[in-house]
């Protein structure tokens, strides 16, 4: 009975959309056009440490995943482990310190414990309308945002209602990887409703670095998506969306296993009500459900099928993980005189379950023996997060201020039966944990003159440990090859951050400078566990680290940018960013004769995996008559010698690379881009690139990449 009811509920809006699409009864004049879908967005966002990437910046350049495009932003870097799925680092913040979500707070829990599938890898670049990067704990409307936020906007914009029937095709060829991609979107709409379906395929081979060395980094991806939207009356918008992403045989030479299969499903629905006559008043409800199945093994590695010395047996490992995230959000805004209020609440439940199976095949005394063992990676792990926020904005003459307060109740539990006790200390015991989190942000801005403004942001962001940090069991999840063990007793990590921003537009130059300082207490990181307590389970792991709270970490730095319009058609831009990060005090393990010999306290030790100072420069000119726009850019990255002694991190040399491409737009609806990334075929690797498995050598970046992309949008 209830299934029938649910089916009716689903079919009713779909039916309305189809009827609406095929009927022309509704005249254009009778429908009031909604201004934007975005209901809650502070006008003070321009005063946040915020940067935006639009779809037009993504569509014609040869990127494999969204992590690659983010690396072009100032003080944003990424961890490369293979040819796909770069894991973003923003100002040195990483993993769950960054709240990555879609649209109105759709969260995805990646399946891979090695982070083969960071959140952004589950969304294809072709589906992106815009990416917002907020470098600090300021965007609190969409869940706890401890240190930074990345918002992927995928919902079709207002244009979706205006086009009638539309086709959008993006085709690309990458000569370095012999990779071909094709993405096609079909859409139909009238003034009241729209429907959009799309799908794509990517087949990319191994890439070659600047030395001509081939890296096993091939991958295959497919995706499908469907969006429908319906406007009821003048102020109500309802929409549903599905996105599916499917990865196969994605190779990661810097990890012990490769991704064999990754299936992602994202279902979401939303309802927005806004009063066009009173733009400060709005109401929105949204809900979503995301599922990820991740399967990885070492079948592409030689040790899977043959004896590789110094091993005397064959080792086979397979891991599979299922995750789901379900959530909802309600938000409304209103104004009282000059005060603009926004309030809301959200909820999400994240579940994760996974196992690893290992087989060892040995030849002994003339007989072949096979031994196998199954381990839990996660066992029915659940994290519930319920949050509420309330914000207010106020402006007076040249001064504007906004503030937001957020409370979260974070509840975690796991079905783990593992208990590790040693020397009267409990190292791992899964018990339900409730944590109460308080976050707030205050942003103020003062216009010094018509062309110059100064802003100050002060924020406190708090987060609880994630699935990995709380419950992972013995898998190499970090950069250092150690197996990691979760810690259900982790305290929440708290970030106090200050940003000072200066923006000026004196004539043809747009200039901005952002200084920041962040102090994180109870910083969550790994610390070595004695082998007598736990031994590694992953091949190649030298030991086990457990997630623990470090008293304090400090990160500070800057971003600066300048855009100069040399003429109407020529522009030049420059940006630079740097983060200096350290632990005021941390315990380091010392080694003697390849054995752990003790510990020592280190002061002011750099945090590992912090990107080096980098500067970017680009020059473009639009030849209007021939409809050609060449762009040349340079990216200079300094050597990173400020490396962690505690983590035995190695320094990285500097590099300079250049990209060049030309876009040609013969007609308004057709664009062609062709060029070369890493024009001079420089052999280089970034400080954050992981090491090749079984060696100290870092994974190199691709060498010269010739590409051609075609976009057709009717």
């Amino acid at each position, binding site marked *: 009975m209830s299934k029938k009811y649910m089916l009716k509920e689903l079919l009713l809006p779909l039916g309305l959309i189809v009827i609406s699409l095929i009927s022309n009864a509704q005249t254009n004049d009778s429908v009031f056009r909604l201004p934007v879908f975005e209901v809650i967005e502070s006008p003070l966002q321009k005063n946040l440490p915020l940067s935006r990437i639009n779809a037009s910046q993504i569509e014609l350049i040869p990127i494999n995943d969204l992590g690659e495009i983010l690396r072009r932003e100032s003080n944003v870097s990424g961890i490369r482990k293979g040819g796909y799925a770069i894991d973003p680092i923003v100002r040195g913040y990483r993993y769950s310190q960054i709240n990555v979500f879609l649209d109105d707070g759709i969260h995805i829990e990646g399946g891979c414990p090695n982070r083969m599938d960071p959140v952004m890898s589950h969304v294809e670049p072709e589906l992106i309308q815009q990416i917002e990067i907020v470098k600090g704990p300021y965007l609190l409307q969409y869940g706890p945002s401890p240190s930074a936020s990345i918002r992927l906007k995928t919902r079709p914009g207002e244009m979706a209602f205006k086009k009638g029937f539309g086709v959008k095709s993006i085709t690309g060829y990458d000569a370095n990887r012999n990779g071909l991609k094709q993405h096609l979107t079909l859409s139909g709409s009238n003034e009241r409703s729209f429907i959009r379906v799309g799908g794509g395929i990517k087949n990319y081979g191994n890439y070659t670095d600047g030395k001509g060395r081939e890296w096993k980094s091939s991958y295959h991806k497919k995706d499908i998506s469907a969006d429908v939207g319906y406007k009821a009356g003048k102020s109500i918008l309802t929409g549903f969306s599905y996105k599916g992403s499917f990865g196969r045989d994605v190779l990661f030479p810097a990890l012990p296993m490769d991704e064999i299969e990754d299936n992602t499903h994202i279902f979401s629905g939303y309802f927005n009500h806004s009063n066009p006559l009173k733009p400060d008043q709005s109401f929105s409800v949204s809900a979503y459900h995301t599922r990820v199945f991740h399967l990885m093994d070492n079948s592409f590695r030689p040790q899977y099928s043959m004896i590789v010395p110094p091993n005397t047996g064959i080792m086979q490992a397979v891991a599979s993980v299922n995750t789901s995230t379900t959530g909802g959000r309600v938000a409304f805004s209103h104004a009282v005189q000059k005060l603009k209020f926004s309030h809301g609440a959200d909820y999400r439940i994240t579940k994760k379950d996974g196992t690893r199976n290992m087989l060892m095949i040995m030849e002994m005394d003339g007989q072949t023996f096979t*031994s196998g063992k199954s381990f839990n990676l996660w066992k029915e792990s659940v994290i519930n997060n319920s949050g509420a926020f309330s914000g207010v904005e106020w402006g007076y003459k040249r001064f504007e201020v906004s503030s937001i307060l957020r409370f979260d109740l974070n509840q975690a539990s796991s079905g783990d039966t593992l208990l590790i006790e040693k020397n009267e200390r409990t190292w791992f015991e899964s018990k339900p944990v409730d944590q109460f989190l308080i976050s707030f942000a205050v942003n103020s801005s003062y216009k010094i003159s018509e062309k110059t403004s100064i802003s100050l942001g002060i924020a406190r962001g708090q987060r609880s440990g994630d699935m990995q940090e709380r419950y992972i069991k013995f898998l190499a999840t970090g950069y250092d090859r150690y197996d990691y063990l979760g810690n259900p007793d982790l305290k929440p990590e708290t970030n106090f951050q200050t940003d000072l921003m200066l923006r000026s537009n004196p004539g043809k130059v747009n200039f901005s400078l952002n200084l920041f300082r962040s102090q994180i207490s109870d910083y969550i990181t790994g610390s070595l566990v004695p082998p007598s307590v736990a*031994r590694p389970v992953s091949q190649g792991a030298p030991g086990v680290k457990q997630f623990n709270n470090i008293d304090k970490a400090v990160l500070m730095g800057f971003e600066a940018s300048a855009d100069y319009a040399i003429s109407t058609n020529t522009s030049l831009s420059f940006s630079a960013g740097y983060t200096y990060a350290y632990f005021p005090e941390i315990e380091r393990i010392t080694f003697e004769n390849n054995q752990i010999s003790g510990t020592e306290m280190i002061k002011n030790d750099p945090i590992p995996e912090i990107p080096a100072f980098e500067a970017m420069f680009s020059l473009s000119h639009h030849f209007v008559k021939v409809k050609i726009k060449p762009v040349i850019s340079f990216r200079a990255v300094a050597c990173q010698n400020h490396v962690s002694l505690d983590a035995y991190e190695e320094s990285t040399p500097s590099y300079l690379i250049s990209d060049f491409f030309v876009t040609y737009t013969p007609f308004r609806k057709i664009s062609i881009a062709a060029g070369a990334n890493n024009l001079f075929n420089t052999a280089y690797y970034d400080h954050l690139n992981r090491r090749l498995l079984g060696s100290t050598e870092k994974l190199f970046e691709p060498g010269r990449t010739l590409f051609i992309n075609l976009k057709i949008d009717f």
Partner: protein
Amino acid sequence: MKQQINNAIYTRKLFLGLALILTIVTSCTEKKPAETSNKLNLKFSHKVDNNNLIFNEMIYTNAAGNNYEVTEVMYFISDLKLHHSDGRTIQPAQWDDIHYIDTNIPSTFDWIVGKDIPTGLYDSLTFTFGFSQARNQSFMFVNPPEVNMAWPEVLGGGFHYLMLNGWWKDLQDVRRPFNFHLGIGQIYANNSGQISDITGFVHNNFTVRPAGEKLRIEENKENVINLVMHIESWFDTPLIYDHNIWGGAIMQNQEAMHMAAINGRDIFSIE
């Protein structure tokens, strides 16, 4: 003109800010050196008839009269305990309580078992040869060289306690390989030796108390204890082990492994 001056001022301010940041960046990491007080280092060596073990030469004869040579010796010891003369039992290996020794890897001959060992006179030390039943878990080592000591799951799982590999000359004077391996033994229905007939397992680990004088741990010093494995002792005292009787492979022969476990109790001495 005014605009150009303004631009210049802005640029100057920018560089001032960057210079300030670079100044902050120049602070250095400080290290507090590790303490090495009362360190204990167990040094392992291997002898035959009180002479250093010479590999790959058929120069030894055991109590059963077998001529033999040794190619390699690999073994685990665990659960080390020091017995203080005041009655306390100290477990120094709190950090890593299992140690692997491999004659192919000289760095394994030293086991730094801990620091801050209580000073004084110790009556003796004891350890488990191999692993206790609770400790001997399959897949607890996944990296070479330890992983190569894995004991097949079907034969009881876990890891070899010992691999003593070499050659002996049989009664026909033919040079034949022996794999004198010790681990979990199996009980076979009707002594068939068939894997499908296994009805139970026997844990052959044993406790060793090396012979020798009392030990002294001194303050602020690296205390070294030399532990010598007497290879010939695997084949005698108290039981005479004859390769011609037991053959080259004993992993599936509990009777032979039981003999090895009995003989192994006195294989170590402190020198």
